[in-house]
Protein backbone atom coordinates (compact mmCIF):
# COMPACT_ATOMS: atom_id res chain seq x y z
CA UNK A 1 0.00 0.00 0.00
CA UNK A 2 2.74 2.38 0.98
CA UNK A 3 4.65 1.91 -2.22
CA UNK A 4 1.50 2.49 -4.16
CA UNK A 5 0.93 5.76 -2.39
CA UNK A 6 4.44 6.83 -3.12
CA UNK A 7 3.93 5.95 -6.71
CA UNK A 8 0.73 7.96 -6.82
CA UNK A 9 2.61 11.04 -5.73
CA UNK A 10 4.87 10.49 -8.66
CA UNK A 11 2.21 11.61 -11.10
CA UNK A 12 2.00 11.56 -14.85
CA UNK A 13 3.77 14.86 -15.21
CA UNK A 14 6.87 13.51 -13.53
CA UNK A 15 6.51 10.31 -15.46
CA UNK A 16 6.79 12.28 -18.69
CA UNK A 17 9.53 14.70 -17.73
CA UNK A 18 11.79 12.84 -15.30
CA UNK A 19 13.28 10.54 -17.93
CA UNK A 20 14.28 13.53 -20.05
CA UNK A 21 15.87 15.30 -17.09
CA UNK A 22 17.60 12.11 -16.09
CA UNK A 23 18.85 11.66 -19.64
CA UNK A 24 20.38 15.13 -19.71
CA UNK A 25 22.12 14.60 -16.41
CA UNK A 26 23.37 11.19 -17.46
CA UNK A 27 24.65 12.59 -20.73
CA UNK A 28 26.63 15.24 -18.93
CA UNK A 29 28.05 12.76 -16.45
CA UNK A 30 28.87 10.36 -19.25
CA UNK A 31 30.75 13.13 -21.00
CA UNK A 32 32.81 13.81 -17.88
CA UNK A 33 33.46 10.09 -17.46
CA UNK A 34 34.59 9.74 -21.08
CA UNK A 35 37.05 12.60 -20.66
CA UNK A 36 38.39 11.40 -17.33
CA UNK A 37 38.84 7.76 -18.33
CA UNK A 38 40.43 8.61 -21.65
CA UNK A 39 42.92 11.00 -20.13
CA UNK A 40 44.03 8.71 -17.31
CA UNK A 41 46.76 7.03 -19.43
CA UNK A 42 48.32 10.42 -20.11
CA UNK A 43 48.42 11.27 -16.42
CA UNK A 44 49.82 7.87 -15.55
CA UNK A 45 52.56 8.26 -18.09
CA UNK A 46 53.50 11.89 -17.67
CA UNK A 47 51.78 13.09 -14.51
CA UNK A 48 51.02 16.77 -14.25
CA UNK A 49 53.80 17.49 -16.73
CA UNK A 50 51.14 17.10 -19.39
CA UNK A 51 49.90 20.50 -18.38
CA UNK A 52 53.13 22.15 -17.36
CA UNK A 53 55.61 21.48 -20.12
CA UNK A 54 55.83 22.62 -23.68
CA UNK A 55 56.92 19.66 -25.77
CA UNK A 56 55.28 17.95 -28.67
CA UNK A 57 57.40 14.97 -29.57
CA UNK A 58 55.11 12.99 -31.79
CA UNK A 59 56.96 9.86 -32.78
CA UNK A 60 55.86 6.58 -34.21
CA UNK A 61 58.23 5.00 -31.75
CA UNK A 62 56.12 5.11 -28.55
CA UNK A 63 59.11 5.40 -26.22
CA UNK A 64 60.15 8.70 -27.72
CA UNK A 65 56.69 10.19 -27.51
CA UNK A 66 56.26 12.99 -25.04
CA UNK A 67 53.64 15.68 -24.88
CA UNK A 68 53.08 18.78 -22.82
CA UNK A 69 50.28 21.12 -23.72
CA UNK A 70 51.53 24.17 -21.87
CA UNK A 71 51.68 26.11 -25.14
CA UNK A 72 48.01 25.43 -25.81
CA UNK A 73 46.97 26.36 -22.28
CA UNK A 74 49.01 29.52 -22.46
CA UNK A 75 47.53 30.38 -25.85
CA UNK A 76 43.98 29.78 -24.65
CA UNK A 77 44.46 32.07 -21.68
CA UNK A 78 46.38 34.70 -23.62
CA UNK A 79 43.92 34.94 -26.51
CA UNK A 80 40.95 34.95 -24.14
CA UNK A 81 42.45 37.77 -22.11
CA UNK A 82 43.13 39.81 -25.24
CA UNK A 83 39.55 39.06 -26.27
CA UNK A 84 38.26 40.45 -23.00
CA UNK A 85 40.41 43.56 -23.32
CA UNK A 86 38.74 44.11 -26.68
CA UNK A 87 35.25 43.11 -25.62
CA UNK A 88 34.91 44.90 -22.29
CA UNK A 89 35.23 48.52 -23.39
CA UNK A 90 33.04 47.79 -26.39
CA UNK A 91 30.36 46.06 -24.33
CA UNK A 92 30.28 48.68 -21.62
CA UNK A 93 30.14 51.58 -24.07
CA UNK A 94 27.50 49.81 -26.08
CA UNK A 95 25.38 49.15 -23.00
CA UNK A 96 25.61 52.75 -21.85
CA UNK A 97 24.86 54.04 -25.32
CA UNK A 98 21.89 51.76 -25.87
CA UNK A 99 20.34 52.33 -22.47
CA UNK A 100 21.03 56.03 -21.94
CA UNK A 101 21.53 57.80 -25.21
CA UNK A 102 20.33 55.92 -28.26
CA UNK A 103 17.02 57.07 -29.72
CA UNK A 104 14.38 54.37 -29.59
CA UNK A 105 14.72 53.38 -33.23
CA UNK A 106 18.50 53.16 -33.15
CA UNK A 107 18.25 51.22 -29.93
CA UNK A 108 16.17 48.53 -31.64
CA UNK A 109 18.62 48.32 -34.52
CA UNK A 110 21.59 48.08 -32.18
CA UNK A 111 20.00 45.33 -30.16
CA UNK A 112 19.12 43.29 -33.22
CA UNK A 113 22.60 43.79 -34.63
CA UNK A 114 24.11 42.54 -31.42
CA UNK A 115 21.86 39.50 -31.39
CA UNK A 116 22.73 38.68 -34.99
CA UNK A 117 26.39 38.88 -34.04
CA UNK A 118 25.77 36.45 -31.22
CA UNK A 119 24.09 33.95 -33.49
CA UNK A 120 26.23 34.33 -36.61
CA UNK A 121 27.89 31.03 -37.55
CA UNK A 122 31.40 31.07 -36.16
CA UNK A 123 32.86 29.82 -39.41
CA UNK A 124 31.84 33.10 -41.04
CA UNK A 125 33.86 34.93 -38.42
CA UNK A 126 36.60 32.45 -39.23
CA UNK A 127 36.74 33.07 -42.98
CA UNK A 128 36.51 36.83 -42.44
CA UNK A 129 39.23 36.63 -39.80
CA UNK A 130 41.58 34.59 -41.96
CA UNK A 131 41.17 36.56 -45.17
CA UNK A 132 40.49 40.08 -43.95
CA UNK A 133 41.28 40.60 -40.28
CA UNK A 134 44.70 38.97 -40.16
CA UNK A 135 46.25 40.90 -43.07
CA UNK A 136 44.51 44.07 -41.89
CA UNK A 137 45.84 43.80 -38.35
CA UNK A 138 49.30 42.98 -39.60
CA UNK A 139 49.43 45.97 -41.87
CA UNK A 140 47.74 48.53 -39.66
CA UNK A 141 48.41 47.44 -36.10
CA UNK A 142 51.30 45.03 -35.80
CA UNK A 143 53.73 46.72 -38.16
CA UNK A 144 53.20 50.23 -36.74
CA UNK A 145 53.48 48.91 -33.21
CA UNK A 146 56.71 47.15 -34.12
CA UNK A 147 58.04 50.20 -35.92
CA UNK A 148 57.43 52.59 -33.05
CA UNK A 149 57.26 50.48 -29.91
CA UNK A 150 59.85 47.79 -30.50
CA UNK A 151 61.80 49.04 -27.50
CA UNK A 152 59.13 47.35 -25.36
CA UNK A 153 60.38 43.79 -24.91
CA UNK A 154 57.18 42.00 -25.90
CA UNK A 155 57.05 43.90 -29.18
CA UNK A 156 60.70 43.48 -30.01
CA UNK A 157 60.19 40.66 -32.51
CA UNK A 158 59.14 41.64 -35.96
CA UNK A 159 55.62 40.34 -36.59
CA UNK A 160 55.98 37.81 -39.36
CA UNK A 161 52.77 36.30 -40.53
CA UNK A 162 49.92 38.08 -38.84
CA UNK A 163 48.57 34.75 -37.61
CA UNK A 164 49.07 35.31 -33.92
CA UNK A 165 47.70 35.46 -30.39
CA UNK A 166 46.75 39.03 -31.12
CA UNK A 167 44.73 38.28 -34.25
CA UNK A 168 42.95 35.43 -32.51
CA UNK A 169 42.31 37.61 -29.47
CA UNK A 170 40.84 40.43 -31.51
CA UNK A 171 38.62 38.06 -33.49
CA UNK A 172 37.49 36.37 -30.29
CA UNK A 173 36.86 39.78 -28.77
CA UNK A 174 34.55 40.67 -31.63
CA UNK A 175 32.81 37.34 -31.26
CA UNK A 176 32.21 37.48 -27.50
CA UNK A 177 31.26 41.16 -27.32
CA UNK A 178 27.56 40.46 -27.91
CA UNK A 179 27.53 37.90 -25.11
CA UNK A 180 29.29 40.15 -22.64
CA UNK A 181 27.19 43.15 -23.58
CA UNK A 182 23.99 41.15 -23.22
CA UNK A 183 24.80 40.64 -19.55
CA UNK A 184 26.07 44.17 -18.99
CA UNK A 185 23.21 45.78 -20.87
CA UNK A 186 20.61 43.86 -18.98
CA UNK A 187 22.15 44.79 -15.65
CA UNK A 188 22.66 48.42 -16.62
CA UNK A 189 19.08 48.75 -17.84
CA UNK A 190 17.68 47.41 -14.60
CA UNK A 191 19.29 50.07 -12.42
CA UNK A 192 16.27 51.71 -10.76
CA UNK A 193 15.53 55.11 -12.23
CA UNK A 194 15.72 56.72 -8.83
CA UNK A 195 19.50 56.12 -8.66
CA UNK A 196 19.92 57.77 -12.01
CA UNK A 197 17.95 60.77 -10.74
CA UNK A 198 19.89 60.82 -7.51
CA UNK A 199 23.17 60.94 -9.37
CA UNK A 200 22.12 63.76 -11.62
CA UNK A 201 20.39 65.70 -8.85
CA UNK A 202 23.75 65.97 -7.12
CA UNK A 203 24.99 68.07 -9.98
CA UNK A 204 27.03 65.37 -11.65
CA UNK A 205 27.90 65.52 -15.31
CA UNK A 206 26.86 62.66 -17.54
CA UNK A 207 30.37 61.24 -17.33
CA UNK A 208 30.44 61.34 -13.56
CA UNK A 209 26.92 60.00 -13.15
CA UNK A 210 27.62 57.15 -15.57
CA UNK A 211 30.77 56.32 -13.67
CA UNK A 212 28.77 55.97 -10.46
CA UNK A 213 26.08 53.89 -12.18
CA UNK A 214 28.65 51.63 -13.80
CA UNK A 215 30.09 51.12 -10.34
CA UNK A 216 26.63 50.00 -9.27
CA UNK A 217 26.57 47.18 -11.88
CA UNK A 218 30.20 46.18 -11.40
CA UNK A 219 29.42 42.65 -10.19
CA UNK A 220 27.24 42.07 -13.24
CA UNK A 221 30.11 43.25 -15.38
CA UNK A 222 32.45 40.85 -13.64
CA UNK A 223 29.97 38.07 -14.27
CA UNK A 224 29.65 39.04 -17.92
CA UNK A 225 33.41 39.08 -18.16
CA UNK A 226 33.67 35.62 -16.70
CA UNK A 227 31.04 34.23 -19.03
CA UNK A 228 32.72 35.93 -21.97
CA UNK A 229 36.00 34.38 -20.97
CA UNK A 230 34.30 31.00 -20.94
CA UNK A 231 32.98 31.54 -24.44
CA UNK A 232 36.35 32.71 -25.70
CA UNK A 233 38.29 29.80 -24.28
CA UNK A 234 35.94 27.26 -25.85
CA UNK A 235 35.75 28.73 -29.35
CA UNK A 236 37.34 26.46 -31.92
CA UNK A 237 37.18 26.88 -35.67
CA UNK A 238 37.49 30.63 -36.00
CA UNK A 239 40.48 30.62 -33.68
CA UNK A 240 42.23 27.72 -35.33
CA UNK A 241 42.07 29.58 -38.63
CA UNK A 242 43.86 32.66 -37.30
CA UNK A 243 46.02 31.70 -34.32
CA UNK A 244 48.84 30.15 -36.36
CA UNK A 245 48.91 26.76 -34.65
CA UNK A 246 52.50 26.74 -33.40
CA UNK A 247 53.76 25.39 -30.09
CA UNK A 248 54.93 28.63 -28.69
CA UNK A 249 54.89 29.97 -25.15
CA UNK A 250 55.68 33.59 -25.69
CA UNK A 251 54.50 36.89 -24.28
CA UNK A 252 54.88 38.44 -27.72
CA UNK A 253 51.26 38.93 -28.80
CA UNK A 254 52.28 39.06 -32.46
CA UNK A 255 53.78 35.58 -32.51
CA UNK A 256 51.82 32.50 -33.53
CA UNK A 257 50.50 30.10 -30.94
CA UNK A 258 48.01 27.37 -30.17
CA UNK A 259 44.84 27.13 -28.14
CA UNK A 260 43.48 24.01 -26.47
CA UNK A 261 40.42 23.77 -28.68
CA UNK A 262 42.49 24.44 -31.78
CA UNK A 263 45.00 21.80 -30.68
CA UNK A 264 42.23 19.25 -30.42
CA UNK A 265 40.74 20.29 -33.75
CA UNK A 266 44.02 20.04 -35.65
CA UNK A 267 45.73 17.12 -33.89
CA UNK A 268 42.90 14.74 -33.05
CA UNK A 269 42.64 13.80 -36.70
CA UNK A 270 46.06 12.18 -36.77
CA UNK A 271 46.41 11.20 -33.14
CA UNK A 272 45.56 7.51 -33.44
CA UNK A 273 48.70 6.54 -35.28
CA UNK A 274 50.65 7.64 -32.25
CA UNK A 275 50.33 5.52 -29.16
CA UNK A 276 49.98 8.21 -26.53
CA UNK A 277 48.71 11.32 -28.28
CA UNK A 278 44.98 10.59 -28.09
CA UNK A 279 45.04 10.37 -24.35
CA UNK A 280 46.93 13.65 -24.11
CA UNK A 281 44.30 15.32 -26.26
CA UNK A 282 41.59 14.00 -23.95
CA UNK A 283 43.57 15.40 -21.04
CA UNK A 284 43.57 18.73 -22.86
CA UNK A 285 39.82 18.36 -23.36
CA UNK A 286 39.41 17.57 -19.67
CA UNK A 287 41.27 20.74 -18.80
CA UNK A 288 38.96 22.74 -21.05
CA UNK A 289 35.97 20.91 -19.59
CA UNK A 290 36.88 21.75 -16.01
CA UNK A 291 37.94 25.31 -16.72
CA UNK A 292 34.68 25.88 -18.58
CA UNK A 293 32.71 24.37 -15.72
CA UNK A 294 34.42 26.41 -13.03
CA UNK A 295 34.18 29.61 -15.01
CA UNK A 296 30.50 29.23 -15.78
CA UNK A 297 29.65 28.37 -12.20
CA UNK A 298 31.68 31.31 -10.97
CA UNK A 299 29.99 33.68 -13.40
CA UNK A 300 26.55 32.42 -12.44
CA UNK A 301 27.38 32.68 -8.75
CA UNK A 302 28.58 36.27 -9.01
CA UNK A 303 25.51 37.27 -11.02
CA UNK A 304 23.08 35.59 -8.64
CA UNK A 305 24.67 37.07 -5.57
CA UNK A 306 24.54 40.49 -7.11
CA UNK A 307 20.89 40.13 -8.11
CA UNK A 308 20.08 39.17 -4.55
CA UNK A 309 22.11 42.02 -3.08
CA UNK A 310 20.77 44.85 -5.18
CA UNK A 311 17.17 43.97 -4.49
CA UNK A 312 17.31 45.64 -1.07
Amino acid at each position, binding site marked *: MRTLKKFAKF*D*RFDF*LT*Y*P*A*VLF*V*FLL*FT*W*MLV*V*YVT*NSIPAFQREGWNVYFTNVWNASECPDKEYYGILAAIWGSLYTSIIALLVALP*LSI*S*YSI*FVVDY*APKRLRGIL*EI*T*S*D*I*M*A*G*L*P*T*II*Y*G*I*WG*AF*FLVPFLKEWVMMPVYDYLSFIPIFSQKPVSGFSFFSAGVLLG*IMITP*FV*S*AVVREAYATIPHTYREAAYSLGL*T*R*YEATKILVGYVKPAMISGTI*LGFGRAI*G*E*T*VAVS*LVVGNAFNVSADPFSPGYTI*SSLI*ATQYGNSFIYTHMTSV*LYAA*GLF*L*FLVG*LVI*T*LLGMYVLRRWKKNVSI
Partner: protein
Amino acid sequence: MYQFDMRRIKEYSFLGVICILSFLMIFPLFHIIFTVFADGIGTLVSTGPVFITGTLDEGGIGPAILGTIILAFFASLIGIPIAFAVGVYAYEYPHSVIGKATTALLEITQEFPTILVGLFVTQILVLPMGTYSAIAGAFALAIILMPYVAVYTKEAMSQIPFTFREAAFSIGVPKVKTVFLIIAPIAKRGILTGLLISVAKVAGETAPLLFTAGGLYQTYPDSLTQPVGAIPLLIYTLVQSPSPADHAMAWGASLVLLLIFLAAFIPLRLSIKEVRL
Protein backbone atom coordinates in the same frame (compact mmCIF):
# COMPACT_ATOMS: atom_id res chain seq x y z
CA MET B 1 28.65 80.24 -16.58
CA TYR B 2 31.10 77.73 -17.98
CA GLN B 3 33.17 77.40 -14.91
CA PHE B 4 33.68 73.63 -15.08
CA ASP B 5 35.62 73.52 -18.26
CA MET B 6 37.59 70.40 -17.40
CA ARG B 7 34.45 68.60 -16.37
CA ARG B 8 32.75 69.57 -19.59
CA ILE B 9 35.67 68.46 -21.70
CA LYS B 10 35.67 65.17 -19.86
CA GLU B 11 31.96 64.78 -20.36
CA TYR B 12 32.04 65.44 -24.07
CA SER B 13 35.03 63.24 -24.68
CA PHE B 14 33.24 60.56 -22.70
CA LEU B 15 30.16 60.89 -24.88
CA GLY B 16 32.33 60.80 -27.98
CA VAL B 17 34.14 57.69 -26.83
CA ILE B 18 30.87 55.95 -25.99
CA CYS B 19 29.47 56.66 -29.44
CA ILE B 20 32.63 55.61 -31.24
CA LEU B 21 33.02 52.39 -29.29
CA SER B 22 29.37 51.47 -29.73
CA PHE B 23 29.76 51.99 -33.43
CA LEU B 24 32.97 49.97 -33.38
CA MET B 25 31.16 47.13 -31.71
CA ILE B 26 28.58 46.67 -34.44
CA PHE B 27 30.84 47.71 -37.30
CA PRO B 28 32.44 44.27 -37.73
CA LEU B 29 29.06 42.70 -38.49
CA PHE B 30 28.44 45.10 -41.34
CA HIS B 31 31.96 44.64 -42.58
CA ILE B 32 31.56 40.87 -42.43
CA ILE B 33 28.29 40.99 -44.33
CA PHE B 34 29.80 43.35 -46.87
CA THR B 35 32.94 41.24 -47.33
CA VAL B 36 31.01 38.00 -47.65
CA PHE B 37 28.72 39.57 -50.23
CA ALA B 38 31.53 41.21 -52.15
CA ASP B 39 33.66 38.07 -52.27
CA GLY B 40 30.87 35.54 -52.56
CA ILE B 41 28.51 37.07 -55.07
CA GLY B 42 30.96 36.62 -57.95
CA THR B 43 31.15 32.88 -57.40
CA LEU B 44 27.43 32.62 -57.02
CA VAL B 45 26.69 34.56 -60.18
CA SER B 46 29.31 32.95 -62.38
CA THR B 47 28.35 29.44 -61.32
CA GLY B 48 24.64 30.05 -61.45
CA PRO B 49 22.03 27.73 -59.97
CA VAL B 50 24.47 24.84 -60.18
CA PHE B 51 26.17 26.35 -57.14
CA ILE B 52 23.11 25.50 -55.08
CA THR B 53 22.28 22.13 -56.60
CA GLY B 54 25.53 20.77 -58.03
CA THR B 55 28.16 18.60 -56.42
CA LEU B 56 31.66 19.87 -55.68
CA ASP B 57 32.92 18.60 -59.01
CA GLU B 58 30.21 20.44 -60.83
CA GLY B 59 31.20 23.56 -58.91
CA GLY B 60 28.34 23.43 -56.46
CA ILE B 61 27.72 22.90 -52.78
CA GLY B 62 24.40 21.09 -53.08
CA PRO B 63 25.35 18.09 -50.93
CA ALA B 64 26.58 20.43 -48.21
CA ILE B 65 23.34 22.40 -48.19
CA LEU B 66 21.30 19.23 -48.06
CA GLY B 67 23.65 17.88 -45.38
CA THR B 68 23.10 20.94 -43.22
CA ILE B 69 19.35 20.58 -43.63
CA ILE B 70 19.48 16.89 -42.74
CA LEU B 71 21.69 17.53 -39.74
CA ALA B 72 19.47 20.33 -38.48
CA PHE B 73 16.34 18.27 -39.01
CA PHE B 74 17.54 15.20 -37.21
CA ALA B 75 19.24 17.19 -34.48
CA SER B 76 15.85 18.81 -33.88
CA LEU B 77 14.12 15.47 -33.96
CA ILE B 78 16.47 14.08 -31.33
CA GLY B 79 16.96 17.17 -29.24
CA ILE B 80 13.71 19.10 -29.16
CA PRO B 81 11.39 16.60 -27.45
CA ILE B 82 13.90 15.91 -24.73
CA ALA B 83 14.78 19.56 -24.31
CA PHE B 84 11.11 20.51 -24.27
CA ALA B 85 10.43 18.06 -21.46
CA VAL B 86 13.46 19.32 -19.54
CA GLY B 87 12.39 22.94 -20.02
CA VAL B 88 8.89 22.16 -18.80
CA TYR B 89 10.37 20.41 -15.81
CA ALA B 90 12.60 23.36 -14.96
CA TYR B 91 9.58 25.63 -15.30
CA GLU B 92 7.41 23.49 -13.08
CA TYR B 93 9.92 22.99 -10.28
CA PRO B 94 12.00 26.17 -10.10
CA HIS B 95 12.68 25.75 -6.40
CA SER B 96 13.20 22.04 -5.90
CA VAL B 97 16.74 20.73 -5.67
CA ILE B 98 16.58 18.85 -8.97
CA GLY B 99 14.85 21.80 -10.61
CA LYS B 100 17.60 24.18 -9.53
CA ALA B 101 20.27 21.70 -10.57
CA THR B 102 18.58 21.35 -13.95
CA THR B 103 18.55 25.10 -14.47
CA ALA B 104 22.21 25.30 -13.51
CA LEU B 105 23.08 22.41 -15.80
CA LEU B 106 21.29 24.09 -18.69
CA GLU B 107 23.28 27.26 -18.16
CA ILE B 108 26.53 25.32 -17.95
CA THR B 109 25.88 23.33 -21.10
CA GLN B 110 24.90 26.49 -22.94
CA GLU B 111 28.40 27.81 -22.31
CA PHE B 112 30.07 24.48 -22.97
CA PRO B 113 32.91 24.37 -25.57
CA THR B 114 31.33 22.75 -28.61
CA ILE B 115 34.51 20.94 -29.70
CA LEU B 116 34.25 18.84 -26.55
CA VAL B 117 30.80 17.67 -27.58
CA GLY B 118 32.19 16.65 -30.96
CA LEU B 119 35.02 14.66 -29.41
CA PHE B 120 32.60 12.97 -27.01
CA VAL B 121 30.28 11.88 -29.80
CA THR B 122 33.24 10.62 -31.79
CA GLN B 123 34.19 8.46 -28.86
CA ILE B 124 30.72 7.06 -28.17
CA LEU B 125 29.25 6.83 -31.67
CA VAL B 126 31.74 7.22 -34.51
CA LEU B 127 34.42 4.81 -33.29
CA PRO B 128 31.97 2.02 -32.31
CA MET B 129 30.06 2.43 -35.58
CA GLY B 130 33.27 2.48 -37.54
CA THR B 131 32.15 5.30 -39.76
CA TYR B 132 31.37 8.99 -39.72
CA SER B 133 27.66 9.38 -40.05
CA ALA B 134 24.84 11.84 -40.32
CA ILE B 135 23.36 10.41 -37.16
CA ALA B 136 26.56 11.09 -35.19
CA GLY B 137 26.66 14.66 -36.46
CA ALA B 138 22.99 15.16 -35.69
CA PHE B 139 23.46 13.76 -32.21
CA ALA B 140 26.36 16.13 -31.53
CA LEU B 141 24.25 19.06 -32.71
CA ALA B 142 21.32 17.82 -30.65
CA ILE B 143 23.43 17.93 -27.48
CA ILE B 144 24.26 21.53 -28.23
CA LEU B 145 20.68 22.34 -29.19
CA MET B 146 19.06 20.98 -26.06
CA PRO B 147 20.02 23.61 -23.47
CA TYR B 148 18.95 26.45 -25.76
CA VAL B 149 15.54 24.92 -26.43
CA ALA B 150 15.04 24.04 -22.79
CA VAL B 151 15.90 27.53 -21.60
CA TYR B 152 13.61 29.13 -24.17
CA THR B 153 10.78 26.80 -23.22
CA LYS B 154 11.24 27.58 -19.57
CA GLU B 155 11.41 31.33 -20.11
CA ALA B 156 8.42 31.41 -22.44
CA MET B 157 6.29 29.46 -20.01
CA SER B 158 7.36 31.58 -17.05
CA GLN B 159 5.94 34.60 -18.86
CA ILE B 160 2.42 33.17 -18.66
CA PRO B 161 0.45 34.74 -15.81
CA PHE B 162 -0.11 32.56 -12.80
CA THR B 163 -3.89 33.01 -12.97
CA PHE B 164 -4.15 30.53 -15.82
CA ARG B 165 -2.67 27.83 -13.66
CA GLU B 166 -4.97 28.72 -10.81
CA ALA B 167 -7.96 28.70 -13.10
CA ALA B 168 -7.04 25.32 -14.51
CA PHE B 169 -6.36 23.79 -11.12
CA SER B 170 -9.55 25.23 -9.68
CA ILE B 171 -11.65 23.28 -12.16
CA GLY B 172 -9.77 20.11 -11.42
CA VAL B 173 -7.45 19.79 -14.40
CA PRO B 174 -4.53 17.56 -13.39
CA LYS B 175 -1.01 19.01 -13.41
CA VAL B 176 0.19 17.18 -16.48
CA LYS B 177 -2.72 18.50 -18.51
CA THR B 178 -2.43 21.97 -17.09
CA VAL B 179 1.19 22.27 -18.03
CA PHE B 180 1.24 20.48 -21.36
CA LEU B 181 -2.22 21.24 -22.70
CA ILE B 182 -2.89 24.69 -21.31
CA ILE B 183 0.25 26.57 -20.31
CA ALA B 184 2.46 25.26 -23.10
CA PRO B 185 -0.04 26.05 -25.87
CA ILE B 186 -0.49 29.57 -24.51
CA ALA B 187 3.27 30.01 -24.55
CA LYS B 188 3.78 28.25 -27.83
CA ARG B 189 4.59 31.35 -29.79
CA GLY B 190 7.53 32.05 -27.51
CA ILE B 191 8.52 28.41 -27.39
CA LEU B 192 8.48 27.92 -31.14
CA THR B 193 10.33 31.12 -31.89
CA GLY B 194 12.99 30.26 -29.37
CA LEU B 195 13.18 26.80 -30.78
CA LEU B 196 13.72 28.00 -34.32
CA ILE B 197 16.33 30.52 -33.20
CA SER B 198 18.16 27.69 -31.47
CA VAL B 199 18.02 25.54 -34.58
CA ALA B 200 19.30 28.43 -36.71
CA LYS B 201 22.18 28.91 -34.30
CA VAL B 202 23.07 25.25 -34.11
CA ALA B 203 22.87 24.66 -37.86
CA GLY B 204 25.83 27.02 -38.26
CA GLU B 205 28.08 25.13 -35.86
CA THR B 206 31.31 23.65 -37.16
CA ALA B 207 33.36 22.28 -34.28
CA PRO B 208 30.97 19.50 -33.21
CA LEU B 209 30.88 18.20 -36.77
CA LEU B 210 34.65 18.06 -37.24
CA PHE B 211 35.06 14.42 -36.23
CA THR B 212 31.47 13.25 -36.46
CA ALA B 213 29.83 14.13 -39.78
CA GLY B 214 32.83 13.33 -41.96
CA GLY B 215 31.88 15.42 -44.96
CA LEU B 216 30.35 14.41 -48.29
CA TYR B 217 30.51 16.76 -51.22
CA GLN B 218 30.70 14.71 -54.41
CA THR B 219 27.41 12.91 -53.96
CA TYR B 220 24.14 13.47 -52.23
CA PRO B 221 23.73 11.64 -48.95
CA ASP B 222 21.26 8.77 -49.03
CA SER B 223 21.71 7.14 -45.66
CA LEU B 224 21.80 8.32 -42.10
CA THR B 225 24.59 5.93 -41.23
CA GLN B 226 26.87 7.28 -43.94
CA PRO B 227 29.00 10.42 -43.79
CA VAL B 228 27.29 13.67 -44.57
CA GLY B 229 28.55 17.14 -45.43
CA ALA B 230 27.62 20.51 -44.00
CA ILE B 231 28.17 24.06 -45.25
CA PRO B 232 30.24 25.23 -42.26
CA LEU B 233 32.39 22.12 -42.42
CA LEU B 234 32.97 22.60 -46.13
CA ILE B 235 33.98 26.23 -45.61
CA TYR B 236 36.42 25.19 -42.90
CA THR B 237 38.06 22.72 -45.29
CA LEU B 238 38.13 25.09 -48.24
CA VAL B 239 39.60 27.98 -46.25
CA GLN B 240 42.60 25.84 -45.40
CA SER B 241 43.32 25.07 -49.03
CA PRO B 242 45.94 27.12 -50.86
CA SER B 243 44.11 27.39 -54.14
CA PRO B 244 42.27 30.61 -54.98
CA ALA B 245 39.54 28.57 -56.65
CA ASP B 246 38.79 26.86 -53.35
CA HIS B 247 38.79 30.21 -51.59
CA ALA B 248 36.25 31.55 -54.06
CA MET B 249 34.16 28.49 -53.38
CA ALA B 250 34.48 29.09 -49.64
CA TRP B 251 33.27 32.68 -50.02
CA GLY B 252 30.34 31.51 -52.12
CA ALA B 253 29.43 28.90 -49.53
CA SER B 254 29.76 31.53 -46.79
CA LEU B 255 27.37 33.77 -48.66
CA VAL B 256 24.84 30.96 -48.91
CA LEU B 257 25.22 30.17 -45.22
CA LEU B 258 24.92 33.84 -44.29
CA LEU B 259 21.81 34.30 -46.40
CA ILE B 260 20.15 31.23 -44.92
CA PHE B 261 21.05 32.39 -41.44
CA LEU B 262 19.87 35.97 -41.88
CA ALA B 263 16.68 34.90 -43.62
CA ALA B 264 15.84 32.61 -40.74
CA PHE B 265 17.14 34.73 -37.90
CA ILE B 266 15.95 38.27 -38.56
CA PRO B 267 12.19 37.57 -38.81
CA LEU B 268 12.41 35.37 -35.74
CA ARG B 269 14.34 37.97 -33.82
CA LEU B 270 11.80 40.65 -34.75
CA SER B 271 8.97 38.57 -33.34
CA ILE B 272 10.55 38.11 -29.94
CA LYS B 273 11.71 40.60 -27.34
CA GLU B 274 15.08 39.22 -26.47
CA VAL B 275 17.22 36.26 -27.35
CA ARG B 276 19.62 34.22 -25.28
CA LEU B 277 22.38 32.68 -27.27
